[in-house]
C-alpha cells in the first residue's frame, strides 16, 4: 500500500501535474470550455424543436406553421454546425493569451487559416443534376463537428508561428507616439502574411493528393480510428473513467484534464446522436461527454454517495459534519470538500473505492444502454452542475436515465461502505483519545 502511495506521490503526481499544465493542452481545454455556453444554448433549441412529448411536432405545425420547425433550429445551426470556426478562434485566443501576445489577432488569423484549409465550394442537386457552387462556407460538414481536429491543429500551428514572429521581433515597428491599438494591428501584418501564405501552400499541396483537403486526410487517419478505438466503446469508457479517478487520487482535477483531450473525439459522436433525434430516430451512440456527466454523480468519484454515507452512517462527529457541509455543493456535482476534507486525495484507503465506484457504474450504465434498458444520451448538452437524477432525465430525455442514476448512487454507496467504515472507526478512536496531531486536526 505504501509502495502505491509512494509511486502516486513521487512519480505519477509530478508527471501528471506537468501534463495538465502543458500550455497547448491547456489552450485546447480552455478553448473548448469558453465555447461550451454556446453549445448549451444550441442544445436548448434542439429540445424545443424535438421535445420528447407525443403530439409536439403536430402542435408546432398547428400553432406556428410548417416553417417553424426549421426556423427554431437556427440557433443550433449557427453554434454546432459551424463550431470548428469558433473552436479555431477560441483555442488560438487562449494560446496567444498564455504567451501574452495579441490574442485577438491570433484568433482572426486562426479563422482565416482554417477556412483556407477547408473547401469553399459545395455541390447541390437541382432536378437530378449536380451543380457545383463556389464561394460557399457550409453550415455543417467540415465547418461543423467533423472539422474539429483540423481546427485544433490549425489554431496551435498558427499561434505558434505568430508567437515566433512576435518574440523574434520580425514585425513592423511603429514609431513611438502611435496609439498602441494601431501599432498592434500593424505588428500582426508580417506574421499574418507569412501564416496566410503557408496555409495557402498547404491547401495547394493537399489538392495534389487524393484527399483533396487536409480534413479528409486527418478524418480518415486520426478521427475515425480514434473514435472507434478509444472513444466509442466500453473499454475506452472504462479507461477514461479510470484515468480521471487516478488523477483525482493525487488531487488533480482529472475531469478537466482528460475531458480536454477526449472532447474532440466525443463531440462528433454526440452530434450524430443529435442528428438522429432531429430525424426522429433513436440516438446510435452511447458514449458522449454527457455519458460521463451522468457517471460523476456529486462530482468526480461519484461522491454524492459518500456524502450520504458520512451523514447517515458515520459515527465520527467530524465526518458527520463534513457530510453535512458537503451536501449542498455535492448536489451540484462539486466535491472538493469530500476530496480534500475526508480526505480521498492521497489516502490509500480512499483511492480504491474512488476508482472502483465510477468504473463499476460505467459498466452498469453502458450495458444498460447497450441492452436498451435505459435511453441513450440524446446529445443535448446541459451544464455539468445540474443536480443528479434531474440530470439523468435531461441527458437521456427519458425517466429511465433518472432511475439509472438512483441505482448508480446505491451501487457506489455499497462499494464505499466498507472503506468509510474503516476510516470512521479510526477517526472515532482518535476523537475519543483526543490526541490530535495539530497539523492533522480538522477545524470545523
Amino acid at each position, binding site marked *: 500500500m505504501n509502495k502505491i502511495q509512494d509511486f502516486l506521490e513521487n512519480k505519477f503526481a509530478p508527471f501528471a501535474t506537468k501534463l495538465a499544465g502543458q500550455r497547448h493542452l*491547456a489552450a485546447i481545454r480552455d478553448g473548448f*470550455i469558453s465555447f461550451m455556453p454556446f453549445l448549451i444554448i444550441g442544445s436548448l433549441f434542439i429540445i424545443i424543436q424535438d421535445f420528447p412529448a407525443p403530439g409536439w411536432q403536430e402542435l408546432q405545425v398547428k400553432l406556428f406553421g410548417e416553417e417553424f420547425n426549421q426556423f427554431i433550429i437556427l440557433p443550433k445551426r449557427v453554434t454546432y454546425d459551424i463550431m470548428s470556426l469558433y473552436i479555431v478562434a477560441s483555442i488560438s485566443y487562449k494560446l496567444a493569451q498564455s504567451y501574452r501576445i495579441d490574442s485577438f489577432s491570433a484568433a482572426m488569423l486562426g479563422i482565416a487559416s482554417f477556412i483556407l484549409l477547408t473547401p469553399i465550394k459545395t455541390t447541390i442537386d437541382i432536378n437530378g443534376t449536380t451543380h457545383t457552387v463556389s464561394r460557399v462556407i457550409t453550415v455543417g460538414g467540415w465547418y461543423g463537428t467533423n472539422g474539429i481536429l483540423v481546427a485544433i491543429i490549425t489554431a496551435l500551428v498558427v499561434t505558434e508561428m505568430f508567437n515566433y514572429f512576435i518574440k523574434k521581433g520580425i514585425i513592423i515597428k511603429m514609431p513611438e507616439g502611435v496609439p498602441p491599438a494601431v501599432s498592434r494591428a500593424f505588428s500582426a501584418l508580417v506574421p499574418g502574411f507569412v501564416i496566410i501564405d503557408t496555409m495557402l501552400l498547404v491547401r495547394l499541396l493537399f489538392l495534389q493528393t487524393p484527399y483533396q483537403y487536409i480534413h479528409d486526410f486527418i478524418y480518415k487517419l486520426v478521427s475515425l480510428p480514434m473514435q472507434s478505438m478509444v472513444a466509442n466503446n466500453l473499454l475506452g469508457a472504462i479507461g477514461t473513467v479510470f484515468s480521471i479517478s487516478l488523477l483525482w487520487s493525487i488531487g488533480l482535477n482529472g475531469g478537466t484534464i482528460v475531458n480536454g483531450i477526449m472532447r474532440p473525439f466525443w463531440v462528433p459522436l454526440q452530434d450524430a446522436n443529435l442528428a438522429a433525434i432531429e430525424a426522429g430516430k433513436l440516438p446510435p451512440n452511447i458514449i458522449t461527454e454527457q455519458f460521463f456527466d451522468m457517471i460523476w454523480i456529486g462530482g468526480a468519484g461519484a461522491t454524492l454517495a459518500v456524502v450520504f454515507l458520512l451523514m447517515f452512517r458515520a459515527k465520527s462527529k467530524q465526518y458527520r459534519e*463534513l457530510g453535512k*457541509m458537503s451536501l449542498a*455543493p455535492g448536489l451540484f456535482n462539486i*466535491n472538493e470538500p469530500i476530496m*480534500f*476534507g475526508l*480526505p480521498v486525495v492521497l489516502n490509500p484507503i480512499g483511492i480504491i473505492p474512488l476508482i472502483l465506484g465510477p468504473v463499476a457504474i460505467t459498466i452498469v450504465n453502458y450495458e444498460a444502454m447497450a441492452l436498451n434498458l435505459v435511453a441513450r444520451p440524446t446529445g443535448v448538452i446541459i451544464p455539468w452542475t445540474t443536480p443528479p437524477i434531474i440530470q439523468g432525465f435531461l441527458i437521456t430525455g427519458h425517466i429511465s436515465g433518472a432511475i439509472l442514476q438512483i441505482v448508480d448512487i446505491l451501487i457506489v454507496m455499497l462499494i464505499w461502505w466498507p472503506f468509510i467504515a474503516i476510516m470512521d472507526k479510526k477517526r472515532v478512536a482518535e476523537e475519543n483519545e483526543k490526541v490530535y496531531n495539530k497539523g492533522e486536526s480538522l477545524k470545523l
Partner: protein
Amino acid sequence: MKIVLICFAGMSTSMLVNRMKKAAANRNINADIVALSTSDMYEELDNADVILLGPQARYVLDEVREIATPKGIPVEVINSQIYGTMNGEAVLDMALELAKIK
C-alpha cells in the same frame, strides 16, 4: 488588498471565497477577494496582491508564477486539508501572511 483564488471552474473556490469574506468582515479587514477559473485568470492576475491556488489546480502553479513572480506577487497552493474543510479563516491568515512578505 486584492486576493485572487484560482481553481478549475471557480466553483468550489467561490464557496471558500464567501467564507473568507465573512472572516475578513469580522476582523474589519478591507479585502477584495475573488475566485477565478484557470481559463479566465490572465486578465486579473496583474492587479492581485496575493494569488492562491486550489490544490486541484496546482498544475497551473508554474504558469502563474511565471507571470506573477516578476511583478512581486506571491503565489501559493492552499493546503488540501484547509481547502477541503473550506476553512476561510485559515486561508485568509495565509493570504495576509504572504502579503506581509511581499
